[in-house]
Structure formats: C-alpha cells, structure tokens
C-alpha cells in the first residue's frame, strides 16, 4: 500500500503545474477560455511538447503512461489550472481508438499531441443504457454513410478528426470523420464554464472505412477514462477553491476580526475540508479500479467517484461562494470560475443521481 505517486509521475505533475502556472495563469486562461477559440493553441502545443498527451496512453499505443493514476495526476493538474485545452477528447477518443484500431495512423499524432480529436458519441436525447443510438451508418458505394446528431461535443471545432459512434446493421460501430467532411456541420458555442463545445450534425457524411465494427468495448473504455478524468479534474478544481476559501477566511475582516474566527464558518470549512479528502479518496479508488478491475466492478467504482465528485463538488462550490460573499460571485475573482467548472462537471457524462443509480444497478447485476 503506497499513497505517494511514483517519482516520474510526481515529476510529471510538478512539471505540468509549473507550466500551467507560468503559461496559463487564470487571467490568461479566462481570456482564452471565453474567447473565440475556447482554448490556447500555444498552450496546447507547449503541453504537447511536454508530452502530456503521451502520459495518457500506454506504451502499446505509443505513450509512456496510461494508467489510472497517470490520468488522475494529469487531470487533477488541468483542474487546478482550469485548463480548457482539448485533453478530454484526446483521452476519450484516443483510448477508444487505441482499442478499436491500435494500428491506425491517426493514433500516433493524437498520442504525440500534434493532432486534435473529438469524441462524438453523446446525443441530444438521453437514452436508456441498452437503447440504440439515433445516429445511423449504412453501407454505401465507396464506404459508409452517416446520419444523425451529436450533442455538446467538447472542442469539436478545434478537432481535425471526430471519432463518431453510429448504429449499423451489425452493431454499434465507430467511424473517423475528418473535420472538413461533406455533410458534416459543426455548430460551435461557448461553454458557461469556459472552453467551447459544439453540436455536430451528420447528413449523408461518407467515409471509406469503419474504425471498428463492434465499438462497444472501445466506447466503454472511453467512457471509463472520461469519468476518471472528469472526477480528477473536479478534485483539482475543488482543491483550489478550498485553498482560496481558507485564505479568504484568514484575511477578510468583518466586525473587526478575520471571518475565520466565526465558529459557524469554522465548522462549515471543517466539513468542506473533510469532504474534499473523501473526494480525493474516491478518485484514488477510481484510478485504482481503472487499472486493476474490469467490467462491472470497474464501472461501479467509477460511478461511485463521479457521484462523489458531483455531490461534494456542489457543496464545495456553493460553500466557497457563500463564504466569500458577493466578491465570490464576481468575474474578476478566479474563485467564481472554479465554482462554475466544479458545478458543470456534474452535468457532463452523467450527474450525481445518474451515477448513483448506475452504481445501484451495477451492484444488482
């Protein structure tokens, strides 16, 4: 049993933290995150040079990491910096591709961080677990024709490639669609918490090959990695919100004393501190399960983590704002952006209730 990150992983985390602090402090991040591109190509390139994308993949995929704890440290640091660069798509689509088509030429560029890919799987209607996707692919002359719509695809405008899921006659398949494909519409928009996403519409988009005929395992891998990543990102953002609130309690004075002298706030910050430790444990459990468990056992622990991050995140975000008072609601204070990101993580890939229900359902099966 060892709760320290191994040396090289800790070095990666330190490097990432130093780089983001220097190159993407929150003011710079905000300009970019709420700007026209929704991420910084320069920061993305810099992180690529540091090999951050490569840390998300195992050696068999051309990376040098790829364990649950690698994903944890990278996304925890991204969360601490509120980074908006397209790592979620890189991770989810890249991991799916590494399973479905490990030999595919695109993979090397994704793992190198030189090509951006988006994971276009989520659809406008929330379906039951077993129900078919609305996006369909049919065999046509010269390949496959795709029709359908994908919802709130992270950083789709920035992507050179989209990994698209679609139902076919023989199962749920995966297709790689280039950004300029005919019949593909990408309607981008800002996210309320920074960065950009897009509605992706496919109308008779023709691609030559399927990446995978049966994509179920690859999609499951992508979703598992995505849940771990978002949980770790939420944890990182919570840590900063917590630290900022402690600092505010120490320095802000009302009635002649630091507000941290007021016992009601002392007891509430104690609860926040305690719950953030619980959140960290949940992410550790998820990273461990990602590496050492599979199938239902793994997914159940990932749902436990996502539920935990959602529930504790709401507590941390709301308490951080409330204890700061009005200033905590201002655009100018970094805290408000942390609160938004923490909150919105509970809207991505299933919220705390959905994961609680999945946790229950997986416990029955």
């Amino acid at each position: 049993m060892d709760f320290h990150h191994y040396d090289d992983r800790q070095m990666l985390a330190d490097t990432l933290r130093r780089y983001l602090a220097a190159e993407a402090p929150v003011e710079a991040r905000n300009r970019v995150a709420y700007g026209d591109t929704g991420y910084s190509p320069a920061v993305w390139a810099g992180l690529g040079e540091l090999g951050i994308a490569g840390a998300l993949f195992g050696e068999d995929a051309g990376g040098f990491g790829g364990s649950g704890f690698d994903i944890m440290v990278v996304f925890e640091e991204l969360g601490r910096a509120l980074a908006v660069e397209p790592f979620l798509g890189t991770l989810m689509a890249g991991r799916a591709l590494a399973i479905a088509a490990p030999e595919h030429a695109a993979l090397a560029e994704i793992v190198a961080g030189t090509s951006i890919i988006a994971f276009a799987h989520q659809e406008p209607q929330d379906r039951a677990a077993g129900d078919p996707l609305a996006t369909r692919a049919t065999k046509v002359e010269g390949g496959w024709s795709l029709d359908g719509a994908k919802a709130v695809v992270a950083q789709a405008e920035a992507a050179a490639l989209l990994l698209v899921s679609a139902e076919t006659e023989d199962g749920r398949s995966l297709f790689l669609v280039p950004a300029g494909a005919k019949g593909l519409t990408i309607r981008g928009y800002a996210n309320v918490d920074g960065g950009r996403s897009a509605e992706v519409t496919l109308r008779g988009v023709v691609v030559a090959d399927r990446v995978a005929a049966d994509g179920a395992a690859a999609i499951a891998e992508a979703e598992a990695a995505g849940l771990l990543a978002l949980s770790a990102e939420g944890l990182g953002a919570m840590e900063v919100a917590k630290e900022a609130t402690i600092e505010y309690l120490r320095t802000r004075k009302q009635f002649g004393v630091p507000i941290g002298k007021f016992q009601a706030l002392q007891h509430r910050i104690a609860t926040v501190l305690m719950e953030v430790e619980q959140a960290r444990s949940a992410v550790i459990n998820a990273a461990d399960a990602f590496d050492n468990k599979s199938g239902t056992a793994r997914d159940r622990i990932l749902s436990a983590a996502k539920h935990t991050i959602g529930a504790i995140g709401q507590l941390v975000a709301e308490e951080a704002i409330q204890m700061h008072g009005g200033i905590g609601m201002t655009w100018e204070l970094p805290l408000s952006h942390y609160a938004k990101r923490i909150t919105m993580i509970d809207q991505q890939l299933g919220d705390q209730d959905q994961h609680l229900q999945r946790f229950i359902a997986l416990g029955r099966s």
Partner: protein
Amino acid sequence: MDLRFTPEEEAFREEVRAFLRDKLPRRLSDKVRHDHTLSKADMEEWHAILNARGWLANHWPVEHGGPGWSVVQRAIFEEEAARAHAPRVIPFGVSMLAPVLIKYGTEEQKSRILPRILDGSDWWCQGYSEPGSGSDLASLKTSAVRDGDHYIVNGQKTWTTLGQYADWIFCLVRTDPKAKAQEGISFLLIDMKSPGVEVRPIVLLDGDAEVNEVFFTDVRVPVGNLVGEENKGWTYAKYLLTYERTNIAGVGASAAAFDRLKALANTLTRGGRPLADDPLFAARMARVEIELANMTTTNLRVVAAAAGGGAPGAESSMLKIKGTEIRQAITALFRRAYGPYAQPFIPEAFEEGYNGEPVGPEDAGAAAPSYFNNRKLSIFGGSNEVQRNIISKMIVGL
C-alpha cells in the same frame, strides 16, 4: 383556523388576474418566463402600467398614492403577478427609499420625491455596502463633511444594483468620524449627475453586469438632501432593513418557477423515459414542492400576523432564509434537468430579437447562468448567516 380567503379577497384576486391578463404585455412576460434580460425600458414600461392603475406603490399610504390594500391583498397581488411572469417592481425607490421618506422625511422631501418615484421620473439606487463592509455594514467609511450648505462626500459604495440606470442614489455616509461604529452615520440622497460621481460595472460570474461600484470624489450634496437628523442614519437604515416586506419569501415567483420545472420534467427524457419519472429527480422535485407548499402557509401565517398587528421579527429572517433556499433549489433543479445542455452559453440568445437556432431544449442555456446568478439570493439583502444570527438573537436571546 381557516386557510381559505374571504369572498372579497377572492374577488380581489380575480380583479388582479384580469388586470394581468389585459395589461401585462406578452412581450414582457415571455422575457421573464424565459429568464431573458429585461432592458431599462422594459422595467419602466411595467412600472408605468402599474402606476396607471394606481398599483405601483402598493404598500404606500393612500395619501401618498398607495391603493390602500391590506397585507393579504398585497400578498395576493405579489403571488398573481409572479405567477403571470410579470417583471418584478424595482424596489429601490418604491419599496426601500419611500418608506424611509414617508416615516422620516420632511414634507418638502415627500412632495418633491415621491411623485417622481411613481411617475418614473427618477430611478433610484442604493448605496449601502462598501468594499470593506459587507455583513458588517456599520464599519462603512464613505465620509460626508459639512461645508456650509453642502456635504462634501468622498468614498466608495459597491454592489449597487442597476446603478447604471439611476438618477439618484440613497446612501449611508459617515458624518461623525469620531463616533462609535453605528453612530455618526447619516442618510443622504445624492444626485448621480453630480460632478465627482462615477459608476463602474461589476461583472458577475454569469457575465451579467447589473451591479456596480459607485465612487464619490468631492461630491457636493445640498444639506436639504439629508433625510432625518444628522448622525441618526443607522436608525433609518435599520427601519428600512426590517421594514415588513410581504414579498420577502418570494412564494409567487418560486411557485411560477416550480410549475415551469414540473412541465419541463415531463418533456425532457432521461434514460429513455420522461425525466419526471426518474425516481431520484422526482424525489428532488417533490421535496421542493412540499417545502414550497409548507412555505406558502408559513408566509401566509406571517402575513396574517402582520395584518393582525403582529410585529415582524425573527419571522422575516426565516422567510428570507427559507424563501431563498427554495428558490436556489429550484434553479439547481433546472440546471440539473438539462444535463449536458446546461453547458452551452449563448448570451445573445437572452436578448430580444435573437433569431439563432436554439441549442438543446428550450431555455436550456439560461439554466446555468440563472443558477449561478441566484447564488446572490443567500448573500445579498442581509446574508443568510446574518439572518441566522438575528433569529438566534431574537429567540435564544444570547
């Protein structure tokens, strides 16, 4: 014990409904319903409509232009107006300054200022909080130094809602720097067009800019703009803060929002079935619905006590806390209902005349900003922590 309204009150409710049906422009109620931004002109338009009917200042005494309603009538009006998605009446002139003036102002001040509040000539804003004094209001530093027939005002106010539209601001200023915290404060009316007044917007986390900082640099204010006595401003400020506000619980607005939420939950799907059939979402909604039904009666009990001469004390703090908790719970449920579609943020879509294609279900884009913006409810207007202090002080007495 009888929860039913009298036939007269029910008739009054019908009258209010008919008025709202006839006079509330659909354009305005649509904006409110969809959480879109109201312009200054929108708010003025609704004020004028209410004023034309004599219902704008519904808690004022009849001699100053009030309609002579009972507190029950006022509660009925507030509920119906909220349920009809009428814009809220901007309170700074009508509900905050006016009661102070009516109780403590000179005849000259009343006859000069009150009619201009009613007819919309003057837009008022509030200058209470300062950067260093939030919950601890008595620590305020903005100074007013007597110089002949004028005060010279220097300092800074903050969290001034809609200050960018205001013609006038009512301020708490320190007139005796040597007095103890709560003494030496005066209540002063300042023309926003005076030289030395500067308004700077504060952008909030949802991108909204309806609150402001207001800076005063050697601003000359005629002594005739002092309300009541010099150094007695704290008394008037407390009166304003504890002034019985029928609508503090916001029951009508919460009920209207809850109805929209319930309808929405029947149209959205989760896991392939209506969101309303999801057992955990249904439980969250039901808890709020029950809390709101209880709150509605709690509010009426306080209203009835006020009608019977009972003093508002800890009750008004309870209504404020519980009312804002329920309102915030509803905004959180809207955000939660939309799932991933709460993330897209297209501020242009909240403006009138936007013709872009919507992203996701109707009004999805307003849910998260509204949730974030409404965190203010438990902070502003006396934070919920301050309200808990008040309840405990009044009832435990320590």
